[in-house]
């Protein structure tokens, strides 16, 4: 049996009635290095419940880094100290005896807090419903191999499609921009021939939704790329901006497409 160690946790607490929260301090003993970070919080919550205290509200689901449910800021790092990882993949072997660990929720105005470490990220769904799809009804598709797709392009589309929608990019961005999230979906569908017919309206509508929902703009901080658990590249933002520019050039005069589109500034980071 491995030897446990002791830690102190400073956790953001906010009830459902409060507008703002505060940090509360908890001590936890006998933390096993092989525990995941969330299992450590499980142990703490079980202890709190048994002591008649309120457990910390914290979300997770798959615990294997793919559902995008868990999302915390640990000691100031979005998703914790490991690079390109989710909180559920973080293990306590990264910490040592006597550590003070600060835990906060993702903080971004388009993600309203619910309770303690739980936030509402449904704004990301709204961006997708603005155009993050191909309009094809079940049953109407042609034979799958009728349109060959260049392998390296398919790989690129897959790189972008790997996004888990955790919102870490938004939380890490000083402007709370969702451009990496949005750019990834736009890129995936812009690269694949299947997404081509709706290429123009997709980027216009998704960028409009993104702006409308209060997400900010990219100012080339590269923070989003640094924290993304799936290593989504910032070049996806560049591609989104090119798509956006292209759409504005070629889109025909259409009363449905107001000038508001031009609000999004076009910062084009260099393609790697």
């Amino acid at each position, binding site marked *: 049996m491995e030897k446990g160690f002791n830690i102190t946790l400073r956790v953001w607490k906010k009830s459902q009635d409060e507008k703002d929260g505060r940090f509360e301090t908890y001590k936890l003993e006998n933390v096993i290095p092989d525990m995941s970070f969330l299992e450590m919080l499980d142990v703490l919550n079980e202890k709190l419940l048994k002591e008649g205290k309120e457990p910390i509200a914290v979300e997770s689901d798959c615990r294997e880094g793919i*559902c995008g449910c868990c999302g915390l800021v640990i000691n100031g790092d979005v998703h914790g100290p490991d690079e390109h990882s989710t909180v559920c993949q973080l293990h306590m072997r990264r910490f040592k005896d006597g550590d003070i660990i600060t835990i906060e929720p993702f903080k971004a105005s388009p993600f309203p807090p619910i309770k303690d470490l739980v936030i509402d990220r449904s704004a990301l769904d709204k961006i997708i419903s603005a155009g993050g799809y191909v309009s094809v009804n079940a049953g109407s598709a042609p034979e799958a191999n009728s349109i060959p797709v260049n392998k390296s392009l398919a790989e690129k589309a897959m790189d972008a*499609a790997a996004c888990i929608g955790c919102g870490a990019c938004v939380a890490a961005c000083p402007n709370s921009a969702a451009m990496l999230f949005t750019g990834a979906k736009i890129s995936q569908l812009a690269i694949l021939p299947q997404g081509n017919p709706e290429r123009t309206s997709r980027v216009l509508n998704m960028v409009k939704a993104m702006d409308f929902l209060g997400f900010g703009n990219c100012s080339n901080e590269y923070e989003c790329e640094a924290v993304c658990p799936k290593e989504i590249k910032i070049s996806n933002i560049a591609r989104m901006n090119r798509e956006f520019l292209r759409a504005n050039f070629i889109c025909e005069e259409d009363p449905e497409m107001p000038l508001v589109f031009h609000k999004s500034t076009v910062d084009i980071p260099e393609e790697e």
Partner: protein
Amino acid sequence: MKLNSKIPSGNIQQKWDNYKFSAKLVNPNNRKKFEIIIIGSGLAGASAAASLGEQGYNVNVFTLPDSPRRAHSIAAQGGINAAKNYKYDGDSVYRLFYDTLKGGDYRAREANVYRLAQISNQIIDHCVATGVPFAREYGGLLDNRSFGGAQVSRTFYARGQTGQQLLLGAYSQMMRQVAAGTVKVFSRREMLDIVVKDGKARGVIVRNLVSGEIEKYCGHAVLLCTGGYSNVFYLSTNAANCNISAAWAAYKKGAGFANPCFTQIHPTCIPRSGDHQSKLTLMSESLRNDARVWVPLKKGDKRKPSDIPQEERDYYLERIYPAFGNLVPRDIASRAAKRMIDEGRGVGATGQAVYLDFKDAIAKQGTEKIKEKYGNLFDMYYQITDENAYEVPMRIYPAPHYTMGGLWVDYELMTAVEGLFALGEANFSDHGANRLGASALMQGLADGYFIISSTLPNYLANASFGKAETTDKEFKECEESVKSKIAKLLSAKGNKTPNEFHRQLGEIMWNYCGMSRSEESLKKALSEIPKLREEFWQNVKIHQDSRFNQTLEKALKTADFLEFAELLVKDALERKESCGGHFREESKTPEGEAKRDDENFSHVSVWEYAGEKKEPILNKEKLEFENLKPSVRSYK
């Protein structure tokens, strides 16, 4: 209970077409008058919402997490089968049908399985069209890989994230319908009861997980797309939120529960590391394409794997099953691992693991190629175990992963309650006693995209609907019973947490009703579960907050698992044969393989709720095999 499977007439190739032609249609103008309730937003739920929305029905989708994209289908790794025969290696719809039925140990309905195989190709077409970035060959066409239980290469994949890509595809198709106004998504909702009026499912009672309010929704049909119940074992590869509650509510409202003892233990999972363990992580079955499974020849060999010479290793799957080798189906691989471990040849600190070794594949193909195929799995393994599997073999151990049993449904996917449907893993229909790899995604999408959109209209067009409103007494009664259950939990003053009860239940289930089951062990479980359940209601402790309260959610789920577990064990006790994932010690061949008993058990066991504290009633649907003669399932 009347069990009419409604298998259409005609030979097996024509049944689905015959059905579709004879099914009644709903006039496009009338579709928007029908309100469809869908519980769950995984592959089955999201694809059903999309396809029904596309047809113009009004769909309301309820889901537990903050976003429908987080449903547990997202975690499926390996791939999705289809009978495209792109490799021209002898595949066909008929062979996929044969493999699936045989893989399920002849405990599934022929007609359902054939339809699944037929639809498999349409699924791939549709997913590609919706922008799913499947792996491709250099020529730009779709790539395939092999998967356990098949000798052809028919599995389509998107790296080790196929479930994610298919779910995001279905989710985006559903979000398209949200934009179109046909689908509404209600997130952070847990369904707690189903309302039946005049014999028809007409609505649901859900709890708003943020406000704690009990909400009522009325509709013309209810579709349960709520996944499986592997979490009855506490430790499984399922996500923390996966639960039995919706299906259990359906069972109590008259839907039969079919073959609950058919649970799948997946052979390649990361072993547990301690008591704090909250879940087990799957390593995709696709790894067995390139890795070799072995244990030391000698008992209790504690040497490092690299110090054990080739001749002192037992590549037991290749030895016992030369025809399929490391690619035998999951149930076979899991039990073989258990036998090795029981012989004292397990590896790792606990001795509860076997090796999954990539050394030969890396030598042959190079690290880069292996990284391209499985990079994310190796990363995941490293994050959890702190070991680099490019250098040392992975340690793996079987873990509960999937449940073939589920709500009994007829050919139209309708349960024994009119207007109540079950799709995907929540139903029992296609995988028999064992599911082959890469078939779950296929079934979820077949049910959601292509089957329900043909069968639900037939129900809606034929049924006569009386008036139903959420103010009806049927709704009020359900609401009251849900509220009183919650009030009871909120006023409980015990000192054990819901999690402790759940873990204890899991131990009972794993020890007495796990990979191998005997009359003795099952009877032991049957005596322990009711005691634990009783203790739960007397001694559970939850945080007392009627609004956002995760301990209350956990308690509600655990309470249902504590009831359901007993039915699962009863079913396992009643089924005295071994078949697929269900292994009875009393029924095995001299070599220790599962021995099926077709004479006595070639049926679906359908359990009917008889009321509180009453023994459930066992009904049987006889399985007829007109096309494939059940044979001894040999992979040697």
